[in-house]
C-alpha cells in the first residue's frame, strides 16, 4: 500500500526550480577556483601554485568523501546530532524529488557537495605557505566529514539547530563559522610560518586577489540564490540581498580605510566583498533588502577590527579566514535574530519585530557552531600531527613549496631549463658538480 516514502516520491519535480539549481550548483563550484586565485594572490610568489592547489585538492577529496559518507551523515534523517548512513555511497539518491523541495535528489546532493568543497578549501587559508600538501589532503578528507558534515546536519539536515528554530539561510554555521573557527584552530596547531613576525610577508599579486574576490561574488549568487532550492521568493530575496549587502560593506570598508590611512586599498576592497557576501549568507532569504544594506555596513566593523588586530598577535592565521568568514558569519547569524521579518520571509520575525525567542535560537547557533568547529579541528590536527609531520621542513619552507611539493613554478622563465627525454634516462636530480 501507499507508505510515506512513496508519497514523498510522488511529489512533483519543478522544471524551473531544477534548471536554476543546476546553474546554481555550477556557480558555487566556480567559487573554489576563484578562492584559489584569491588565496594565490595573497601569498608570496614562490608559493602561488601550492596555495592554489590546496583549493583544487579540496574539490577532489571533499567531493569523493561527500559522495561516500559526508552527504549521508549530513542529510539522512533528522537525528539531533548526526545523520544516518542510508545515503552512503549515494545509495538511493536518484531522480525523485528531495523531501521539502521540487528538485531531484541528485541535484540537491550535488548542490550541497559544492558547499562542502568550498568550505574545506577555505580552511586552507590558515595553513598556506608551510603545511605539507600530503598532510593537507588527509586533513581535508577527514575534516569534510568530521566537521563540515556534522555542522551541515545541525544547520541544514534536520539536526538540533534547524529543528530548534535556528534560521541559517545558506550556511552561516557550517560554511562561514565552521571554516573560520576551524582556521583558527588549524593555525594554532600547525604554527606560524618561520618568517612570521620577522619579515614582511606580503601579497604578491593584488590583481589576482581582486579578480578572485569578484569571481567569488559571482559564484555567491548561486550559493545564496540557490539556498531556497527553488525560484521562489526566498531565492529571489537572497539573490538580490547578495548584491546589496556586499556593496554596502565595500563602501564602509573604504571609509574605514580612509580613516586609518587616508587611502582606499585594493586588497581591502577584495576583503570587503568577501565579508559582505559572508555576512548576508545566513540572512539572505530572511531579511528585507533595507536591513540587508544595514547588515552590509555593520558587518564591516568587527571584521575590520579583527583584521587589524590579528597580525599583532602571534597567531599566523595567514589569510584571515577567521575575520572574513568566522566573524562575518557570526555577525550575520545574530543579525537574523534581530531583523528577520516574517512579512518578507514567511517564516519568522526577529527581536526587532517582536519575537525575542528568535534571537535566542540564533545566539545558540553562534556559540555552538564555533565551539564544535574549533574543538573538532584542534583535536583532528593534534591526532594527525602525532601520526605524520604536518609541516614542510624549514629548508623547503624557505625555498619554495611550488618546487618542493609540486615540481613546478607559477612563473617559469624557461631559462636554463634542459629538456629531459625518456631516452636520456634522467629520472633523478643530477649533481652537476660534486661539492665535496
Amino acid at each position: 500500500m501507499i507508505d510515506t516514502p512513496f508519497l514523498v516520491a510522488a511529489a512533483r519535480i519543478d522544471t524551473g526550480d531544477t534548471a536554476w539549481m543546476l546553474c546554481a550548483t555550477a556557480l558555487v563550484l566556480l567559487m573554489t577556483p576563484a578562492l584559489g586565485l584569491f588565496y594565490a594572490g595573497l601569498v608570496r610568489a614562490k608559493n602561488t601554485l601550492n596555495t592554489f592547489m590546496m583549493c583544487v585538492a579540496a574539490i577532489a577529496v571533499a567531493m569523493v568523501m561527500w559522495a561516500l559518507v559526508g552527504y549521508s551523515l549530513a542529510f539522512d534523517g533528522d537525528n539531533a546530532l548526526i545523520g544516518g548512513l542510508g545515503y552512503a555511497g549515494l545509495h538511493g539518491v536518484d531522480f525523485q524529488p528531495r523531501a521539502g523541495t521540487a528538485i531531484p535528489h541528485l541535484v540537491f546532493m550535488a548542490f550541497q557537495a559544492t558547499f562542502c568543497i568550498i568550505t574545506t578549501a577555505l580552511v586552507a587559508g590558515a595553513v598556506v605557505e608551510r603545511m605539507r600538501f600530503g598532510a593537507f589532503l588527509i586533513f581535508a578528507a577527514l575534516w569534510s566529514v568530521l566537521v563540515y558534515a556534522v555542522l551541515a546536519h545541525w544547520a541544514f539536515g534536520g539536526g538540533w539547530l534547524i529543528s530548534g528554530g535556528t534560521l541559517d539561510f545558506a550556511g552561516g554555521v557550517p560554511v562561514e563559522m565552521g571554516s573560520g573557527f576551524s582556521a583558527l584552530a588549524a593555525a594554532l596547531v600547525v604554527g606560524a610560518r618561520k618568517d612570521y613576525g620577522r619579515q614582511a610577508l606580503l601579497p604578491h599579486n593584488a590583481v589576482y586577489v581582486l579578480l578572485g574576490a569578484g569571481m567569488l561574488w559571482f559564484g555567491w549568487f548561486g550559493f545564496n540564490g540557490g539556498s531556497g532550492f527553488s525560484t521562489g521568493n526566498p531565492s529571489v530575496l537572497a539573490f538580490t540581498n547578495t548584491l546589496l549587502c556586499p556593496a554596502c560593506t565595500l563602501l564602509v570598508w573604504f571609509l574605514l580605510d580612509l580613516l586609518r590611512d587616508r587611502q582606499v586599498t585594493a586588497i581591502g576592497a577584495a576583503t570587503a566583498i568577501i565579508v559582505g557576501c559572508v555576512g548576508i549568507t545566513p540572512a539572505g532569504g530572511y531579511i528585507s533588502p533595507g536591513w540587508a544594506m544595514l547588515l552590509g555596513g555593520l558587518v564591516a566593523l568587527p571584521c575590520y577590527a579583527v583584521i587589524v588586530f590579528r597580525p599583532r598577535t602571534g597567531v599566523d592565521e595567514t589569510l584571515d579566514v577567521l575575520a572574513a568568514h568566522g566573524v562575518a558569519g557570526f555577525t550575520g547569524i545574530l543579525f537574523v535574530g534581530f531583523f528577520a521579518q516574517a512579512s518578507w520571509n514567511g517564516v519568522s520575525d526577529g527581536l526587532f519585530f517582536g519575537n525575542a525567542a528568535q534571537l535566542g535560537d540564533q545566539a545558540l547557533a553562534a556559540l555552538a557552531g564555533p565551539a564544535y568547529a574549533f574543538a573538532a579541528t584542534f583535536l583532528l590536527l593534534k591526532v594527525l600531527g602525532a601520526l605524520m609531520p604536518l609541516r614542510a621542513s624549514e629548508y623547503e619552507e624557505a625555498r619554495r613549496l611550488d618546487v618542493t611539493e609540486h615540481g613546478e613554478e607559477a612563473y617559469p622563465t624557461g631559462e636554463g631549463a634542459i629538456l629531459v627525454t625518456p631516452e636520456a634516462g634522467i629520472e633523478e636530480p643530477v649533481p652537476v658538480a660534486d661539492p665535496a
Partner: protein
Amino acid sequence: MIGIVRPEKANDVLEALYRSEVRGFSLSRVEGHGGELDRVETYRGTTVKVGLEDKVRFEIAVSDPFVQPTIDALCEGARTGEVGDGKIFVVPLEQVVRIRSGETDDLAVTPVKA
C-alpha cells in the same frame, strides 16, 4: 665587493649588514649556477632539468676597515650550511665618486650622518 646569496636569505643579509653599520649597497635579482643539485620540473608531458637558481646579488663598495665586517655580515646572514649558499667576491676598486657632492673614494662610501 660582490656577494651572491639565496633570495630567501636576502633579508637576513640586510639585517646583518645594518648591524655592521654597512649602509650603502645595491641589490639585483640574478639567476646563476653553482654546485647545487639541478631541480627537475614537469609540465604535462615535458620534463626539464633547471640548472639556474634564483639568487640575489649584493654590490657593496666599502673602505678598507669595513672589508672584513662586511664579509662577516654576508656569511652570517646568508649561510644555511647547504650547497648553494652563494659566494663573495672581493675586488679592488679604482675610484668612487658620490655624484651629488663630487666626494671621492673613502669619503664617497662613508654614510652621510643624519
